[in-house]
């Protein structure tokens, strides 16, 4: 299917900024099941952009803005044509071996509660076990459609009733790694999450012997098919976040994000 993405990010500052440098992970790459037909990043002020690829293989953009900046708007728009392989990832250049993704991070560390949960719902790290885990995460939590709270860990999220897609993915990753399956966070877009979302979508990928990387979206309770556009991966959401920024200037910043994805068969 053809997905069109409109992702707007506005930073408004209470005091003008002298300089802004941002690292953007906002550009999808082609895979077996996703072809980027059109993609643009636009900024509403004088700026320079350079293209890079990071150690995870993500396409990144460095954005440099100079001068008194009170507000900056990033508009990411594009069209991606997708197909489905039942969540099995193909045609991606991997920079790091699967075992690297057994590393834990503070945001994805499993505590006792997550480990018992994981061993209750499934044992093992094969496809069936991880599918059960994915479904179990879906069933355990209600939807939190707000903006995810910065810095919240999987362990902190686990005691709540309702979770954002990011937190559900963190719980899944923590549990999968505890079961011995390499797992990672994916940031991207999905047309089934509703219009005007306050953040891009997030889900997980786990590595299964003999099958390779397989995507699991705990928010939907199944593997992504043709409704997802995969943009960036990392050990957790922080590492894959669309924007890492730094500014030179006083005051506080206000952030507004509006993401709309439309599917069209």
């Amino acid at each position: 299917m053809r997905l069109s993405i409109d992702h707007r990010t506005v930073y408004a500052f209470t005091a003008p900024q002298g300089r802004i440098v941002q690292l953007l992970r906002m550009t999808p790459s082609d895979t077996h099941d996703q072809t980027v037909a059109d993609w643009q990043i636009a900024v509403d002020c004088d700026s320079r952009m350079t293209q890079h690829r990071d150690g995870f293989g993500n396409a990144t953009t460095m954005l440099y803005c100079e001068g008194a900046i009170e507000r900056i708007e990033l508009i990411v728009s594009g069209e991606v044509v997708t197909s489905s392989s039942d969540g099995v990832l193909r045609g991606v250049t991997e920079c790091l071996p699967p075992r690297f993704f057994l590393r834990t991070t503070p945001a994805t560390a499993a505590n006792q509660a997550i480990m018992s949960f994981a061993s209750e719902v499934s044992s093992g790290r094969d496809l069936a076990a991880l599918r059960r885990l994915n479904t179990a995460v879906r069933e355990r939590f209600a939807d939190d459609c707000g903006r995810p709270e910065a810095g919240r860990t999987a362990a902190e999220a686990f005691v709540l009733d309702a979770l954002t897609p990011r937190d559900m993915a963190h719980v899944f990753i923590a549990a999968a790694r505890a079961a011995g399956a390499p797992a990672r966070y994916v940031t991207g877009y999905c047309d089934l999450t509703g219009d005007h979302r306050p953040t891009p979508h997030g889900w997980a990928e786990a590595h299964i012997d003999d099958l390779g990387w397989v995507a699991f979206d705990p928010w939907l309770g199944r593997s992504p098919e043709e409704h997802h556009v995969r943009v960036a991966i990392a050990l957790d959401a922080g590492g894959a976040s669309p924007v890492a920024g730094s500014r030179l200037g006083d005051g506080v910043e206000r952030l507004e994000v509006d993401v709309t994805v439309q599917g069209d068969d």
Partner: protein
Amino acid sequence: MGTWAFDEILGTDGASRPELANLVDWLADTPPDELRRRQEAAESTFRQLGITFAVYGDNDASERIIPFDIVPRVFLADEWARLSEGLIQRVEAINAFLDDIYGAQEILKAGVLPEDLIFLNPQFRPEVVGIRPPHGIWAHICGIDLVRTGPDQFFVLEDNARTPSGVSYMLENREAMVRLCPELFGQLRVAAVDSYPDRLLETMRSVAPRGCGQNPTCVVLTPGHYNSAYYEHSFLADSMGIELVEAADLVVDNDAVYMRTIAGRVKVDVIYRRVDDDFLDPLVFRPDSMLGVPGLIAAYAAGNVAIINAPGNGIADDKAIYSYMPEIVRFYSGKEAKLPNVETWRCREPEALRYTLDNLDQLVVKLVDGSGGYGMLVGPTASNGEIEKFRQVLEAEPHRYIAQPTLALSTVPTLVESGVAPRHVDFRPFVLSGAKGVQVVPGGLTRVALREGSLVVNSSQGGGTKDSFVLLDEGMKQTQTMGPDGMTQEQSL
């Protein structure tokens, strides 16, 4: 244990080494009071200069100096030649290993190292995977910590491939010795160390990114004047005649690094950083940190700036990797390591674990990822209770531990309360790797345990420093005409 040790000047059994007769005479002829007077004069100069050494977790570090001992430690020319070969081989292997591990990873494909040792090691930085530093050099400045147990028995205790410090001591100690004991330099032909700043600058310039001209701009990056090694940072910048910058002085624009000067921005080509990886670039390493230069890694990845030493080097001097250094040297050089490690038992291996458990009372057992002496057992000084307690810990998680024998470190005569007496020493030579090859500076930092019998040379625990003489002989004169100041230099290009 002190009585067992090899004394580097007096030899074993008190029979002094014939090559050092001049020094032995000097020691015998100079009364201790005179030595003490000179030593105090040196320390008073150090205090005035504000020379301090990194003592982590000590807030008063900036007001502290490390005790200086007036009796030098001496290496004979042929000893030094052999040592240099070993150091060059080791540092070449460290560079090859880093280039490989962040690139093709041949060593893993060959099964020389267990994959998890790299990939699950926090010192392996995914952020720099795929980035190749200018000229493929990673560890431009290495400090290799050595211990000695006999005339020709040197062992590597630790590799320092991140931001090794202490070189200002090598230079300031020599300054003090030349001023206070000029007669020694008349009697012994000592290789000069004062060209180190020139050598370092030459190394920095040699690895400048291609296309930045004949005169690349080099800087030293310091965390600031509150850092306990600030004296060394400013000393190095000053003696190389380059700017000492803080992160806030640097900006990145369009993937190039600039420093903010009164005449506007000036492009920076080579950065000798004395800050940790974590604080280099907040966009990449520590998003919560306000420190660092946003965009620095992008400029580095684009090949527009050289960072000395390269980010990610921690994987080469990690304790877990250390035990594999003989294999690493063999893999990249095709030869056996000329400088051996201290024998190390990796408790993750069942046979090594069995040996360790059987000999706990004679071994030092360390955590692979520990530091500051935590989670460590020193068998010979531990009580039976401590040993039994440690045995349980070790059996529960053997993969987290390595074991080493307690070595009889060599001694050097040292001025103490009662006069001149032997004290244990270790040694940190400095090895420079540039585009034109690897060189060892003929000297280094000798640390001495001032307490009788003590093997702990750390400045935080009663350690001091000595000047380290490398003697030139007839053979070395040849080298001297080839490379000034007796620098041993190996052309690899």
